[in-house]
């Protein structure tokens, strides 16, 4: 049995069905991300685990015990909020020690744990400060320490980095992951930022409209998306329409140009199908090792720093491709006739 077991979880707000038949088994020490657009039910699911929302039906078991009927303060769950939620009237040390003080632990134990936690978040000198004297990143680290100080069974993070600026976001997500690995604490992380989810998680739950569309490790989620939504939400995607010419050999035409996928397609000849290609799987110019190619003219070139994003117009449709920016290589000019090559194995096929 898994450490955290969520089965057949449902949540209605009035007649709105916000979480639909949600099932998830999380092993001890796993880092799970709930990824999805706002309003997809990821935060509601997290809040049901924390006890701030009551499920309409279904069960949540932590370490074998059903917690649905327990109040939030009985669940022994650490929570970190987007808005930090540090207690403004308490110092950093008092904030971190709050949970232990409420539990009636002896003073010496509290002091010891607070010192340990301040060390873990690399802010050993700031115990006497008040929250308003800290930067956003420091406040969120204190909030993390406060949640961990009670030695919770489960750590829940609700978009903890959304209020921070980009640089701190990247460094703090590495720090959170390092602390999580060090303590081996089972963690659920809610985010709408795919980069965060991909870089931090053991497994990702991609949610849409209350449904868990796909559960899998970052590599699978990115490279083998199970649904059109997952493919579109995670990463950038070229969505193209093609016509099937021979389903048995996987022959199709894309804006009049033939492509042979070398695998059978589940559609009749003459039917229209959807293709998806990630920009980074496409390359400019002919490549001997790839088996697919398209011809077109350069529509525009975006300079994204380390990467150049080139958009190539076919006969009506446009594909975007990413190539590394190297100073030696001249970027293509708008209007150039180019060849785009790719591996047909990277082409994702969906119907309609």
């Amino acid at each position, binding site marked *: 049995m898994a450490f955290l077991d969520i089965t057949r979880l449902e949540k209605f707000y009035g007649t709105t069905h916000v979480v639909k038949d949600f099932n998830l088994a999380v092993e001890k020490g796993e880092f799970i991300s709930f990824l999805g657009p706002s309003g997809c039910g990821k935060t509601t699911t997290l809040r049901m685990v924390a006890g701030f929302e009551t499920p309409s039906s279904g069960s949540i078991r932590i370490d074998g015990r059903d917690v649905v009927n327990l109040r*939030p*303060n009985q669940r*022994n769950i650490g*929570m970190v909020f987007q808005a930090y939620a*540090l207690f403004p009237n308490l110092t950093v040390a008092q904030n971190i020690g*709050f949970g232990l003080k*409420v*539990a009636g632990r002896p003073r010496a134990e509290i002091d010891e744990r607070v010192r340990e936690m301040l060390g873990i978040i690399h802010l050993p000198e700031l115990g006497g400060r*008040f929250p308003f004297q800290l930067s956003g990143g420091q406040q969120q680290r204190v909030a993390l320490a406060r949640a961990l100080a*009670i030695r919770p069974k489960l750590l829940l993070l609700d978009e903890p980095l959304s209020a921070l600026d980009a640089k701190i976001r990247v460094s703090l997500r590495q720090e959170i992951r390092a602390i999580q690995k060090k303590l081996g604490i089972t963690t659920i992380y809610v985010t709408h930022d795919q980069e965060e989810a991909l870089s931090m998680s053991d497994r990702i739950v991609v949610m849409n409209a209350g449904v868990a569309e796909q559960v899998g490790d970052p590599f699978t989620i990115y490279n083998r998306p199970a649904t059109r939504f997952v493919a579109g939400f995670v990463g950038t995607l070229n969505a193209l329409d093609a016509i099937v010419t021979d389903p048995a050999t996987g022959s199709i035409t894309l804006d009049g140009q033939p492509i042979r996928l070398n695998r059978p397609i589940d559609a009749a000849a003459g039917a229209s199908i959807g293709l998806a290609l990630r920009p980074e799987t496409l390359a400019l110019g002919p490549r001997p090792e790839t088996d697919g190619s398209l011809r077109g003219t350069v529509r525009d070139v975006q300079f994204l720093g380390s990467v150049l994003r080139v958009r190539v117009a076919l006969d009506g449709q446009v594909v975007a491709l990413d190539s590394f920016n190297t100073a030696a290589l001249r970027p293509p000019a708008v209007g150039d006739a180019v060849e785009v090559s790719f591996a047909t194995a990277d082409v994702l096929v969906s119907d309609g």
Partner: protein
Amino acid sequence: MKPSRIWAWLALAVGALYFALPLIGTIEFSLRMRRGVYSFDAYRAVLSDPQFRATFSFSVFMALMTIVLGVLVIAPTAYWVRLKLPRWRPIVEFITLLPLVVPPIVLVFGYIRLYNTSSWLPLTGTAGGTNLLLLAGYTVLALPYMYRAVDTGLRTIDVATLTEAAQSLGAGWITIMARIILPNIMVAILSGAFLTFAIVIGEFVLAALLNRPAFGPYLQVLGANRAYEPAALAVITFAITWACMGLIQLVTRLQKHTQVPR
């Protein structure tokens, strides 16, 4: 100087005179008890009057009790409304405004009718019971000010998230209220407490009709029978009020976590 400036200064001067003249006059008059020279005789007379001390300390005690009762009733209510019943806020706000619409005289007559000696709860039969009624009445009178002060205080903090953070750390409702919510709205509560104090110290109708030895009725009796002492009393009351204001400023400054980040 531009003409518009002159008018502005003139308006300010007229306003200042409007407020200051009666005060200056009162102070001047309160010092003239002894013929021909200024003296503090009136103040001495007032302060040495055992009636003054008795009524004033009674009113101060009632004011403090009113503040305590008011905070105990209003702070959890305002907190709960903000947290769980946001749709009820307009209704609750309307209820808290009622004391400004219903005159105190109506309130106290209602009390006397409901709790007289032949009722099922004869509170007016004993001094203690009547004090209780007076306390309840004062709390009602303070309701609009106290509720608004507390509600404004709650608006400055993220009530919902702080509550959830405390809950996830194992805290129950009483702990959350006492250790998180109240300390964070202390300044707002103090400003409400100050208003409550001022209302109770000067209140006349409830105390007079319930026949309690409060400061308001004493002021009235003194004012009807003496010449200089009421002026001295008025000045003393002003001084107390200003001291209260100063205290609130001081407390606000001393609270570390409310300092503005530099």
